[in-house]
């Protein structure tokens, strides 16, 4: 009888857990859907709230065109229609996966984004990954033994790097390695499109970005590990006779990595928005300069398309972060 009650209680608990998880999933789905709708609306509204006229921008500063021609252009770009009509047209285009046509780049936005994202992923993506691995590992080690001279020195170095503006760091590296030592080229993704040329051209910008990203990850991981290593589970693991390295990499790092997961999720958005200043220094044709130029030129379709891609990437990264949190921390899995 008692066994039967216990079984029922277990079943009830399981059901509660399942329904709790389902409820949580539905809630999250709604939250993400609402965020997406808000983002789409903001994507449309924000570029139009900026001062300036896309048509005048397209014409240029010293070209005289009649009002009739200006109106013709405005009509061609769909900017003469009431704002709600423009919005419904924008939503309609989105539903057809049409991101519009760039006023200044004379190409479909999807095509422009496809090309720029590819190179940006290669350039920023590699930097973020390298930065994450390097920063996490070194940060974990530095947090585990913060008192050693080497770790103090590394810590000072990373603090200095994280405080340095990436633009300055990029210029400094360019000056030393490209100008003084002549080891690397000054600009572009390549000179001729071969793997060797791409690697040669990308080495400096990727290194600069990776070092900058690593410095942030290092400092967060170091602080997190210092906090975690004083917890009881770490002492228990030591009491069981585990080696330092095993305690760090099997137990502590897992708990300490939660802030890093958050940071990586944030970096994911950064991944698609590019790294404007580094792109400017190395004259790279990435997402950063694309968005900057679109803002200057009031290229609404490019801005809408770019913001949409970035927003989707951030949403996706947040969803992944939620999942990874659940994997890394069982407490997150428990229904509230």
């Amino acid at each position, binding site marked *: 009888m008692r066994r039967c009650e216990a079984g029922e209680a277990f079943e009830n608990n399981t059901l509660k857990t399942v329904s709790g998880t389902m409820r949580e999933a539905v809630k999250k789905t709604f939250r993400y859907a609402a965020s997406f709708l808000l983002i789409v609306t903001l994507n449309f509204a924000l570029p139009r709230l900026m001062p300036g006229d896309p048509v005048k*921008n397209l014409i240029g500063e010293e070209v005289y065109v009649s009002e009739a021609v200006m109106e013709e252009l405005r009509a061609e770009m769909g900017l003469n229609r009431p704002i709600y009509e423009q919005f419904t047209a924008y939503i309609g285009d989105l539903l057809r996966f049409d991101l519009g*046509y760039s006023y200044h780049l004379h190409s479909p936005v999807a095509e422009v984004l496809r090309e720029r994202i590819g190179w940006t992923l290669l350039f920023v993506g590699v930097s973020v990954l390298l930065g994450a691995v390097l920063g996490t590992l070194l940060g974990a080690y530095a947090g585990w033994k913060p008192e050693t001279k080497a770790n103090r020195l590394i810590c000072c170095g990373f603090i200095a790097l994280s405080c340095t503006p990436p633009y300055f760091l990029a210029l400094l590296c360019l000056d030393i390695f490209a100008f003084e030592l002549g080891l690397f080229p000054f600009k572009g993704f390549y000179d*001729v499109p071969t793997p060797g040329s791409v690697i040669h051209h990308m080495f400096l910008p990727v290194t600069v970005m990776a070092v900058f990203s690593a410095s942030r990850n290092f400092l967060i991981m170091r602080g997190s590990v210092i906090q975690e290593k004083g917890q009881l589970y770490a002492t228990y693991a030591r009491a069981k006779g585990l080696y330092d390295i095993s305690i760090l990499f099997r137990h502590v790092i897992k708990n300490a990595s939660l802030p890093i997961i958050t940071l990586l999720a944030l970096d994911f958005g950064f991944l698609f928005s590019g790294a404007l200043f580094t792109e400017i220094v190395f*004259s790279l044709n990435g997402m950063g300069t694309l968005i900057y130029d679109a803002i200057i030129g009031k290229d609404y379709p490019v801005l809408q398309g770019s913001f949409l891609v970035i927003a989707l990437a951030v949403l996706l990264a947040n969803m992944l972060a939620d999942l990874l949190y659940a994997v890394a921390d069982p407490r997150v899995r428990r229904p509230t």
Partner: protein
Amino acid sequence: MKQIKGFTGPELKKELKRWLIYSVLMTIFCSNICPAGAVGTEDSGENLSASNGGIFDRIITYIKSLLGEENVQSSENVSGASTAGMPSTAGMPQSAGSEGTVLKIATPNVIKSASFIGDSNLGVFAHLSNPPLMKMDSEGHLVGQLAESYNVSENNTCWTFYLRDDLYWSDGEPVTPEDVEFSIRYYGKKTPWASWINETLESSTVSGVNNSVTFKFNKPYTRVNLEFATYNILPAHIWKTIENPMEYTNNGPYVGCGPYYLKLIDLNAGKLVFEKNPYWKGKAPESETVEVHFYSSVDVATLALENGEVDTYYKYAGSYSYSGIEQLEKTGNFDFIEKTDIGLVFLAPNLKKAPLSDEDFRDALAYAINYEEIVNLETLGYGKVPNRGFVPPTMENFKETEKLEYNPEKAREILEKAGYSDSNGNGVLEGKDGKDIKLEILIRPDYARTGELLEEYFEQVGLDSDLRTADADTWFTLKDKYEYDLTVTRSTPWGMLMHASWGSGYFDSRRTGQGVMHNLDDPEFLQLCDDILATTDPEELDGYSSELQDYYAENLPAIPLYWNNVVTPYNRHFEGWYTDPLYGIYNLDTFLNLHEV
């Protein structure tokens, strides 16, 4: 004993092996993607590929090649070129290529799109491959380029251009008057900035006998020779198939009729490559290849120049950074061409609002400004104190007017005489309405320091002012609504030449445009503009230009702040540089005369 969750020793090794194999496979895959793109470029007959395709293109190309699809193009733009009728260079006699001299030009004028017609910066650089009919010589006179000569009817409605007969496109076809007629009509119909052609061109005829083309306009048009110094001539047999040239992007090659043709636009490498036109019959240029390298950062362009990566620096309507000149001089490898720019930086008053509508007030302001100091700070000495006549000395028909002078005492005196006094003794002059004068100075970000200096100068003569720095778009909006008292802005070479020339296009209230002030509706000035626009007679033009410069000097519709010099550094190994007021060193004379020493 409870086993620790995670990998045990053998499991870990197995996992590591798996990751190692995966990494090796990924490396092989990645290293194969790029050559996959490169194969296509060889197939297309080019050493330097049209490589604007992204990494996704490469992956798709790689997958296609794995699936066994033959003749995979590396870039869709290359294949786009052939479908759009652009002949490949495969059948063209090639120049020496890498064996010859390469002239490299650094520029901050970045090409954003591979649109030959749509990208304004590309339009300037393409003068080398598709030269316009006319050009400006070093003295600022308009002379023929593709045109041997030209004439205009007495009523200024009919313009006939006689073409040189030794011109050939880079695909071997001769350049015909039909090409010129097609190009001009094409621009008029297809581009918004040349819509004036569509609106005013009544008819056009070509004559094979004297190799000429005649354009008849529906009203007198006296600036056609100047306008036609900016439109690149296109091969009709290629472009007639392209319905929407603004939306047409292609990485090249483009058929050209200049001494070079545009072989490649590579946005990811940041360069344009021009190769010798094998059918060019004029004076042969020495450099086999001309490369234009664009840099997003002027600092990096400076480093590249200093390092010898490039031979010269070109910026349309701009100079090499004045602060970088000394450093470049130290290398001993560079010489400099220094010319006064025909564009200038000026202070524009709002003529529709008191007290700036008062001529005496403007006169007083002109004496309150320390021009020497501004010249020294803004141009580091590479500039001059301007004349009241606005127009810089390098412009055609320049007239020497009174030099602007810094004299705060005189400024105070003029203000007092004009009725601006400080009756309440608070140190600020009052306007004619009895209220303290507070001038709102609208500043574009490039001139923030000049604005601060002006604020100081005006304070010294008892005028309070408020600086308002605005981004470009806000500046355009406020300027067009006349919501300012004074604003600092600049004119470009083309801006000085547009409308009735000599800077009139900036002030004529009948005009619109982002950069123009349209703040002057004085009938005397408007009549002068109309007179200039109604004549092509050089003597009459000379007289009108003198009148216009006198008008500027007397009425000060704008106070020029400094005439700056355009400084162009060049590698001493090259000689034969030539500059014109409109496009600086970027002209055919430079490329044809340049030789290595």
